[in-house]
């Protein structure tokens, strides 16, 4: 690796404050931690701030959290920069994270990346229209590889066509059913159940995923 991640030069809003609603939630979160350990709330609060601010975390928001928790700003910057799920630069409405770690890659994540580029015009690390696409390390859904995460939702068992369809649906303002796009249930074998076939009847489901149940 020859590059260094310096703080990207983006236009930072001058100020940030929690909305009254979020401030109430922030207070609730802080109250979960024992006395003198309130600074532990830094991560959920940063998440809350990111959600309020269109899925990215400006410096003013970090400063606001620091002030709320009475901790030095640099300590908040350290946390925010350590975790990749805090976006330090603005992202589009659909924040697409493509898993390209080994299992997904073996199952064709390159095709997925190509499909997204074709459908949205955004390659890895780029923003186009309502889509920002980034490459991420393993998101823990290897059994349903390849997969992408769009904002908070997992879309699994993708191939080129299903990915294009997914992107098109998002473009049209729809919210496609999350989970496996082939209709398999959770992480059962791709060819259907292979064990305990007679043990008990399968409950009727609509093909939900572990994400639904969780």
């Amino acid at each position, binding site marked *: 690796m020859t590059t260094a991640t310096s703080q990207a030069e983006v236009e930072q809003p001058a100020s940030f404050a929690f909305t009254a609603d979020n401030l109430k939630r922030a207070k609730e979160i802080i109250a979960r931690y024992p006395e003198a350990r309130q600074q532990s709330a830094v991560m959920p609060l940063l998440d809350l701030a990111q959600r309020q601010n269109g899925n990215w975390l400006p410096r003013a928001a970090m400063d606001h959290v620091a002030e709320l928790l009475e901790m030095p700003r*640099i300590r908040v910057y350290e946390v925010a920069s*350590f975790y990749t799920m805090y976006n330090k630069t603005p992202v589009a409405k659909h924040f697409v994270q493509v898993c390209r770690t080994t299992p997904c890659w073996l199952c064709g994540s390159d095709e997925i990346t190509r499909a997204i580029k074709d459908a949205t015009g955004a390659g890895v690390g780029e923003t186009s229209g309502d889509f920002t696409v980034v490459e991420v390390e393993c998101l823990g859904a290897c059994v349903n590889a390849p997969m992408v995460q769009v904002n908070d939702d997992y879309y699994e068992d993708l191939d080129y066509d299903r990915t294009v369809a997914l992107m098109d649906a998002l473009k049209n303002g729809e919210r496609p059913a999350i989970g496996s796009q082939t209709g398999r249930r959770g992480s059962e074998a791709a060819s259907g159940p292979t064990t305990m076939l007679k043990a008990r009847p399968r409950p009727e489901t609509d093909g939900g995923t572990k994400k639904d149940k969780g």
Partner: protein
Amino acid sequence: MPKLTIDGIEIEVEPGTSVLQACERLGIEIPRFCFHDRLSVPANCRMCLVELERSPKPIASCANPATDGMVIHTDSELTKKARKGVMEFLLINHPLDCPICDQGGECDLQDQAVAYGLDHSRYQENKRAVKEKYLGPLIKTFMTRCIHCTRCIRFANEIAGVEELGATGRGEHMEIGTYIESAITSELSGNLIDVCPVGALTSKPYAFAARPWELKRTDSIDVMDAVGSSIRIDSRGGEVMRVLPRLHEDVNEEWISDKTRFACDGLKRQRLDRPYVRKDGRLQPATWPEAFAAVADRLSGLKGEEIAAIAGDLADAEGLMALKDLMASLGSPNLDCRQDGAKIGEGPRSGYIFNTGIAGIESADAILLVGTNPRWEAPMVNARIRKRWLLGGQIGALKVGVVGPDVDLTYRKEHLGAGPRTLESIAQGKNAFADVLKAAEHPMVIVGMGALTRSDGAAVLAMARSISETYGAVKEGWNGFNVLHTAAGRVGALDLGFMPGEGGRDLPGILDGAQSGAVKLVWLYGADEFDVSQLGPDADNGAFVVYQGHHGDRAAHRADVILPGAAYTEKNATYVNTEGRVQRARMAVFPPGDAREDWRIIRAFSETIGRKLPYDSLTQVRNRLAEVNPVFGTLDRLPEEGLGDFGEAGKVGSAGFVSPVDNFYMTDPISRASITMAKCMDEIVGRASAAAE
């Protein structure tokens, strides 16, 4: 106590001693980068690995406490292999730019790579590169060289007390910096350069200026504040290249303030390098005999009481002695060293020194700060208070009360009030802090110049003394009454009695006399910190001014004769710090041009007017010093004095105390001439005051 074996030698150590420290006790060197005696132990560089018998892998000796029965090998194959491995990893991303690196020649990484590393690299890939960070006008960064030991972060958090540095990003993308690219707002930031074991943080003003092996090292004493930090002056030819701290456990430990370190470029600017005599209203270059003749002319026929002398803040004891003796031989009682008008110096020595000692702060459990901002007046004292405050959990909390300016001192303190009325209520026991002092085992009262330079200064001093006495700050084995000076030469001048003699005028008296015509000649020995205009517009409508000093600062412009003296780096001089500790500054370079050591100037002048002073050598002057005050016969010793009677009870005003240092970076002729200090002022003081508005 745990007993362990290191390289076959058995040693018994205090519980809590680390393996590394135990090795050091035996004189065995353990390489390290992240470990620093005065900082917390993160154990992240892994350079100090040693073999521990029956352990599956080598241990980090800095973080492992010595336990009973340990068998350590610091010279085994395994240890050597471990060190080589760690070093190889460290060098993977470290650039091979030693020839252009300012740390070269005094670099821990360089030295340890030679001693413990491989002779070649097996790494073929590209090295990591990191963008430079901006840390202000004092610290130059080259972050590609950083090995992530985090010493700088720990120094900023723990010693300096400014949490502005951190490690952002992670893994290979971890970077040290402020994240927001702003200057470090600490008066101790220069020490970051010293703690950095590699060339990532280096001195900006000293960049590419010299190599360590070209420099002549002179152990000396700092005069930028009254702490008298131990310093090392590095010079090349006739030029002071840089100033570094020197270890003195009782004064500055191993730190110095930014002013001490970086004001040295002021020694090269605005210098008085030859005598001047005012002719036709203009200062014209002259020779020494011409200058002496001009002064002698003016002196002839003057009565003693028509002559006066004022000593400046950087005056050394030798020069003061000579000037005092000269004034005595001229019959003048008009002497003063208190340019700020502080109401001190009458009465016993304990009434004007820092009796507890700076190291003594570590034993205190309650501190009352009166009219002082130690962070700017004496950063080393403030760092010591912070150190004691941080120890809180271990030896009992330190309570700090402040009467005076309410500023951020880097530790928790209680602001009790702004002025003498609050002090009065403490003295009368009406303030809650009185109970804190009463309950404390070792209470301290620290009185700053901000409380003593007022018209009610003597009454404030008396009040502080009575608080010290009533609340048990002065007892067997503990003297908690302290005066914190801001001028390096002040205690020495008071010790020599550079004060108005019988019927003599003090500073306001001298100024009045100059305006009324009663005082006809004023000899300023480096005195720049008072309103010079009060000496009258010129020699005909005021006093004839002789300025003896090293910088063309405020007073030199008013002078009628200028006698060029030597700065603290250019003379062998005695200074007494605020604790009353007598210390010696040593000549690192010669004074520029025709300038001379100050006592020699006065001694030479005395001869031209036929009143030859009875000393011809430095030894003789120093003997004379010891004769006048025996403390000058001691060296680097903390005096132990009981409290005497001083101060003058009386009514106090209601105005709040104001610290005499309103701009840390410019307090004397040297720092006022320094470009580096000017940059700091713009960047740090300017930003702070903009934020306050």
